[in-house]
């Protein structure tokens, strides 16, 4: 009797588990993932002059194919493969994985012979700290975090607030309703930098502009970077509340923001990559501009420094001046305001405008 109750229970539970898992991990990116899961692994570019330059990439949740943050890092690797003859091996984090899995990812890449490791995302900081200490001969590039430092760690950071300032200005110049939106993936200090810069740029153009802000998840739940459904729901809400331009800093969830923009006939702003080139073809026409965070530049720079023997530990900041962040012009939707945006850009580079980062 007990057993049959359990079985009936089991069937019901399976449904709930399935729903719960979906809600939690939000099925990652629903879009097709070109070359997902390291199909590029092991492929070599040109023959290197000296010994092989072997680069291990540890991606954040979403991995190659998120059309955003991780993809940007991946294109840095692709460039290094093509130009420096680097060999690459890639692995991505899974939602809700234990800390040991991140450590293990780095260590297994090293065990497989990859002596330059790029850890993409601040969640890797504790793991990098530990594994870098255990492997002093391996060079680490840690993107977006200064929490782990060491003689073999380069901290690759970006002035996201400066790029966000420019797209904030673009949004304020383009809005007809004077209401714009911001969708953040996870409420962290990093993503708040995007929000702060965006708001400052928008207010600089029009102090009366109203900004709706929504973060998809709260730490320690990082699924907000890989939940198309959550991004879509948040943006739908904003478009219904009069917003006509929404900027997302939400990684893979941004795909949902674009879908919502398409459905509402409104505009959206991409992030990290030039998303008018990388997003699903069906939604590219809603992308006003993208805040390009050139993780690829940082990654490539790191790999090149290892190859050239110029690796230097410590923080390397890629700002507007260094070409680490920018706004994109693909699609031609900002052509009419380009002069104004470039004016802001020049002022930031010259130091006349100080963009807040919080």
């Amino acid at each position, binding site marked *: 009797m007990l057993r049959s109750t359990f079985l009936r229970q089991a069937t019901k*539970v399976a449904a709930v*588990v399935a729903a719960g898992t979906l809600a939690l991990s939000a099925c*990652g990116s629903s879009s097709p993932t070109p070359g997902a899961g390291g199909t590029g692994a092991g492929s070599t570019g040109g023959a290197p002059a000296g010994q092989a330059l072997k680069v291990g990439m540890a991606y954040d949740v979403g991995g190659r194919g998120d059309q955003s943050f991780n993809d940007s890092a991946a294109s840095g690797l692709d460039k290094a493969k093509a130009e420096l003859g680097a060999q690459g091996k890639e692995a991505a984090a899974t939602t*809700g994985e234990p800390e040991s*899995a991140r450590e*293990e990812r780095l260590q297994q890449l090293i065990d*497989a012979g990859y002596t330059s490791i790029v850890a993409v995302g*601040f969640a890797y900081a504790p793991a990098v700290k530990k594994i870098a200490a255990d492997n002093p001969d391996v060079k680490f590039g840690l993107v977006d975090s200064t929490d782990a430092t060491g003689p073999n760690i380069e901290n690759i950071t970006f002035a996201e607030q400066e790029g966000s300032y420019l797209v904030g200005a673009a949004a304020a110049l383009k809005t007809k309703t004077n209401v714009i939106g911001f969708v953040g993936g996870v409420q962290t200090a990093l993503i708040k930098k995007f929000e702060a810069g965006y708001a400052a740029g928008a207010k600089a153009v029009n102090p009366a502009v109203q900004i709706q802000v929504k973060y998809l998840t709260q730490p320690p739940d990082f699924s907000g970077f890989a939940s198309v459904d959550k991004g879509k729901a948040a943006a739908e809400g904003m478009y219904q509340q009069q917003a006509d331009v929404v900027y997302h800093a939400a990684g893979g969830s941004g795909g949902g923001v674009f879908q919502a923009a398409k459905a509402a006939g409104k505009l959206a702003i991409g992030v990290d990559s030039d998303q008018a080139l990388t997003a699903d073809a069906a939604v590219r026409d809603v992308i006003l501009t993208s805040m390009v965070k050139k993780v690829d530049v940082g990654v490539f720079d790191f790999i090149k420094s290892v190859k050239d023997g110029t690796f230097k530990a410590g923080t390397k900041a890629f700002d507007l001046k260094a070409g680490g962040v920018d706004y994109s012009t693909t699609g031609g939707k900002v052509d009419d305001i380009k002069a104004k945006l470039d004016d802001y850009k020049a002022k930031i580079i010259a130091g006349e405008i100080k963009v807040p980062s919080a």
Partner: protein
Amino acid sequence: MSRLQRRRVLLALAAPALAVVVAFVVTSLILVVARDPVGQVWATLLTPPRPRLVVAILNGAIVYYVSAVAVAIGFRMNLFNIGVDGQYRVAAFAAAVVAGQAWLPGPLNVALGLVVAMLAGGLWAGIAGLLRIYRGVSEVISTIMLNAIATFLVAYLLRKAAVDGGGSNVVSTRPLPDASRVPGLPLVPGVSREVYGLVFLAVLVGLVYWFVLSRTRFGFDLRATGASESAAVASGVDVRRMVVTSMILSGMTAGLVGMPLLFGQDYAYGSTFQPGLGFAGIAIALLGRNHPVGIAFAALLWAYLDQQSNALQITAGVSDKLVGVIQGVIVLSVVIAYELVRRGGVALEQRRVASLLDASSGRPAEGAPA
């Protein structure tokens, strides 16, 4: 009689065996469709893990085990505590804040942290229990909603309680004093990584779960209520009280889920504290059939698959999503296999009874269900 028992044992073993076969076949099919290297994937998955990885698997399983037991307590009472995920986060946060203050010295501080965690988890789950008996709210709905509330509440309080990380992306509570950190156990020789010291806690949770459910009056009442509420009422069980009590017990156990992590690894509750343990616990409890030993095997299997994700990506070159697919397929296979085996068992039983009746009455048993 011994033949019957043998058949029962065979049936009990048939279910997991069938589940494994179904999972194997379905996963292979998915791999073929996705044009992934099937042989390479299985070779990687079946390679014995290195000692370093063994420790990681044990540590993962310790945490999963406690989570699954918390879920199983509800299951035995026919309660679906989907809220273990929220309960363990509320509890881990509360324990981290209290233990971080270091009001008590060393081990006493650890004990205080454990008590606080159990109280917090129990209280959080108790809300769902009270809602069920006073307002008739299904605990499935209320615990899922309480998960969302827990997320926001903890995020809000975390910002209040956080120590300044100096612009760091990681927000966390005040770290535990050194004296309150539970040292790891070097169970596997030659590896720097250690097994969580609170592995004893998980073992204790399993023992208490087994003892209370199968050796006490309370445990009998709980199982009886889960099996048939009306029968339980008839035998004098106060069902409303049982609902609240078992929900609170489930929540108290859930409160302990994060403790090995808090005292053995992270030493603070922060934005990198492992999420999603409660949902994994549901699948593991199901896989382990709510049995204290079964759950242990299921937790090990789950942690093993978790840790193979890296090897699959790095050695076999397949997507990181594959492990999630395999885990999902296993849960579905288990449900399907158990149901098939149950139906098979019922059919066998009916045939046996029919033939016995035949023999005793000397008439063909008409309409005996096959």
